[in-house]
């Protein structure tokens, strides 16, 4: 035993040194594309919604594609899927009413998935939407998918037992946030919730009491996946989803792995987005981010055709980003997750102070403190670049390092005393320190108060919270300003607790603009949201946009077809293949 230990320790020293050498930045490594923005359209031609999806250059059939991830995906039941991992995995085994055709370069097209188009606004006022179901779409057992199974899937999302999933459709159909009290799924399993009808096996109709022009976007979330009533096992369905996608789940060992194999009843001719290149996908759980990255760098055996879902850990970012030999095996893109310094407008009522805060922030230093370009990318707008219709602007042009002098001018000799609430985790603490330094250079007096990480979100959402400033992150469910600006800044939604408008901004003119834009066809809303974004920042300055998170992933040399999705900012697997 003794010699073996000695050899191991000796080798370890050599290898740690080797790893250190890898960390040297050669300057030829990976760079973030900060200019990537998202453009998108809603397909009007049914041909766009038909398959097969365009072949992926160089893709070959066969092999097993591995996804390494530390924790298991929390829910697989499509009606409960809402985590990013779940949203990336679900398209492999489920199909939805609509879906995004994503070219991996920021160009999105919303197309029909199970539906022939992304929906028809029957009356032109977004209150009645009709979807026609495609021919030839089937479940894994070969039985046809009709509007009935899709409607049942939506109906079961009213079941209060099935927590965790998005609630847009339920709330819109029931016309109340308390949808489960408006319609009792368990007592009405053979009927449908109010407003949802299936005139025939090919037609699904949503009738809302209020206009919901975002329905085609919302319908791209997994809760529109079909389900035969006979397969519904309630909460236990999480461990046995019934496939409608190109793969079916053949094995689940919670916390260990999930195996998906080809679904022979999936017809590529009906699917505009997905492929079925690998024979199987294996989601392998357990290893932490560092172990995952080391396995991928090692690139041996099954790990050569794997991606590390948990991204490149901070301890290895310099080593990976600076290693030119790994450049072809990394994915590095800004995501739609936007971080801002929220200003509590109930407490900071003076616009000039809010504007001064915007001038004072040094985004460059902040990003360096967070870990650099592989972690964060600067942001001066409320909406992230990955939003349809996005327009870059900077309402308070202070340069990358801020302009404390301009801020001092606005303060005009005042030294506002503000309380900055930060979560007691590493990242928030780091941002808090940086922000305090920036603001104090500009003449503010900042008191940093920590909030327990577990309760920070709940506490800052309370109307009478005791902080002037806090860090917030927003990741929209679809890349439209409609899912960003109204939730964050519509003052009519302010209540005692659970607010998303954590700036507590309530500007009647802006609220009226929300109503006007929301009533427009979704395809025309993009530029209007961009204009309103700038207007809010200029007129109200309810926050200081800071940065968007950057996705930084590493994959094996045989893993092909991967890209960072423009909708959620995580790896997408619809084009994935294993290189021979």
């Amino acid at each position, binding site marked *: 035993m003794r010699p073996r230990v000695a050899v191991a320790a000796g080798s370890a020293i050599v*290898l740690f040194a080797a790893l250190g050498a890898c960390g040297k930045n050669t300057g030829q490594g990976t760079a973030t594309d900060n200019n990537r923005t998202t453009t998108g359209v809603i397909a009007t031609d049914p041909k766009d919604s038909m398959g097969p999806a365009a072949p992926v250059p160089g893709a070959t059939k066969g092999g097993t594609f591995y996804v390494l991830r530390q924790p298991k995906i929390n829910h697989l039941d499509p009606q409960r899927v809402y985590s990013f991992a779940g949203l990336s995995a679900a398209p492999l085994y489920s199909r939805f009413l609509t879906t995004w055709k994503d070219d991996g370069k920021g160009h999105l097209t919303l197309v029909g998935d199970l539906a022939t188009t992304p929906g028809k606004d029957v009356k032109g006022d977004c209150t009645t939407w009709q979807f026609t179901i495609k021919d030839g779409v089937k479940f894994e057992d070969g039985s046809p998918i009709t509007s009935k199974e899709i409607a049942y899937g939506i109906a079961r999302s009213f079941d209060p037992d099935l927590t965790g999933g998005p609630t847009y459709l339920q*709330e819109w159909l029931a016309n109340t*946030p308390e949808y489960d009290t408006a319609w009792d799924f368990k007592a009405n399993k053979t009927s449908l919730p109010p407003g949802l009808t299936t005139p025939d096996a090919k037609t699904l109709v949503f009738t809302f009491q209020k206009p919901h022009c975002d329905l085609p976007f919302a319908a791209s979330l997994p809760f529109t996946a079909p389900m035969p009533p006979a397969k519904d096992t309630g909460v236990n369905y999480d*461990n046995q989803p019934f496939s409608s996608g190109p793969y079916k789940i053949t094995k689940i060992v*919670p*916390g260990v792995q999930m195996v998906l194999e080809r679904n022979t009843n999936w017809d590529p001719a009906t699917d505009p987005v997905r492929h079925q290149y690998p024979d199987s996908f294996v989601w392998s759980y357990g290893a932490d981010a560092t*172990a995952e990255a080391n396995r991928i760098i090692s690139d041996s*055996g099954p790990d050569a055709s794997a991606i590390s879902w948990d991204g490149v850990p901070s301890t290895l970012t310099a080593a990976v980003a600076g290693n030119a030999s790994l450049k072809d095996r990394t994915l590095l893109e800004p995501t739609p997750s936007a971080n801002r310094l929220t200003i509590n407008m109930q407490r900071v009522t003076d616009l000039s102070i809010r504007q001064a805060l915007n001038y004072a922030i040094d985004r460059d230093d902040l990003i360096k403190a967070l870990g650099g370009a592989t972690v964060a990318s600067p942001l001066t707008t409320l909406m992230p670049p990955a939003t349809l219709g996005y327009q870059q602007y900077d309402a308070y042009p202070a340069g990358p390092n801020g302009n404390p002098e301009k801020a001092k001018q606005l303060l005009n000799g005042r030294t506002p005393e503000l309380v900055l609430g930060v979560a007691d985790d590493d990242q928030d603490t780091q941002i808090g320190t940086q922000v305090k330094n920036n603001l104090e250079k500009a003449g503010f007096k900042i008191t940093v108060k920590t909030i327990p990480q577990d309760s920070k979100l709940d506490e800052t959402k309370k109307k009478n919270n005791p902080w002037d400033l806090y860090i917030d992150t927003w990741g929209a469910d679809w890349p439209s300003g409609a899912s960003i600006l109204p939730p964050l800044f519509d003052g009519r939604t302010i209540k005692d607790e659970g607010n998303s408008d954590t700036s507590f901004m309530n500007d009647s003119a802006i609220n009226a603009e929300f109503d006007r834009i929301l009533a427009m066809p979704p395809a025309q809303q993009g530029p209007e949201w961009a204009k309103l974004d700038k207007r809010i920042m200029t007129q109200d300055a309810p926050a200081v946009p800071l940065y968007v998170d950057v996705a930084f992933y590493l994959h094996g040399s045989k893993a092909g077809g991967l890209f960072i999705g423009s909708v959620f900012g995580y790896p997408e697997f619809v084009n994935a293949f294993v290189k021979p």
Partner: protein
Amino acid sequence: MLRFLIRRVLSATLVLFAISVLTFLMFFALPRDPVTSMCPKNCNPARLERVRAELGLSDPLYQQYAGYMKGIVLGRDLNSAEGGHCAAPCLGYSYINSEPVSRTIARVLPVTLSIVIPAAVLWLALGVGLGMVSALRRGSVLDRLAIGFSLTGASLQIYFVGAVLLLVFTYTLHLVPVPHYTSITQNPADWASGLVLAWVTLAFLFSAIYARLSRAQMLETLSEDFIRTARSKGLPKFRVYGQHALRAAITPIVTIAGMDIGGALGGTVVTETTFGIQGLGRTTWDAVREGDLPTLMATVLIAAVFIVVANIVVDIVYAFIDPRVRLG
């Protein structure tokens, strides 16, 4: 012997009862409310209360405790949000894993057993063997090496040694596969190769402690009068050391080994996390992280059972190896 066993089992039952009550109360006193994860989005106090009532969490604590205990023995009917009927031994339903906790435990327990038992055999053989030889060759090069080994092992941590072994043998030399668990009944070779790094890590660190302890015990025993008597009687060396000295020296080691093995069976959290293996320890850690109270409660209870049972086993073994201990 039978009376001793009955007495020990009864006292162990009492200890377990006390632990179960304390665990039950402790988790209800925690700040994390299990109901919040079950309440739909836009949860408000009225909805929270409704979910609480549906889950039976508004019932008096003693009633909830009785229901939990009844479930372990007889099974019980849970709410539809908890998967319906839960067969005995029912340890509740995990909202996080979407399955009865007993199913989770049945899956992860063999993993921890597979890590701990072979590792314990290794660390006992290596540690005790090294300690004994070191004591018998006191002052020799071998003794000094053994002391160095034990000092090294005692001052290192599982997450460090594990990471080094992974880096060397798995990521670089590719001699050992990425740690994983395969049932021994399915593929014994894969079972061993998937866990060998965990065994070696545990064995290295634990054996260091046992080597030091065994050496000290043996040295103390060798200076006892009865050893001098045995030697003066002209008994062969192997009988003096193997039969008399070892037997006397090993009793405290058995006690500590029982506690260590019992504790490790309750969950090798760091080992399983370092090697990314989903055993009882990793499951406990996940339950803590995700606020999975039913799973956490079950793993704490199981860990307590292991320690209590290990203590009984130690008492029995102790009685066999040390004639001075009287049973009954």
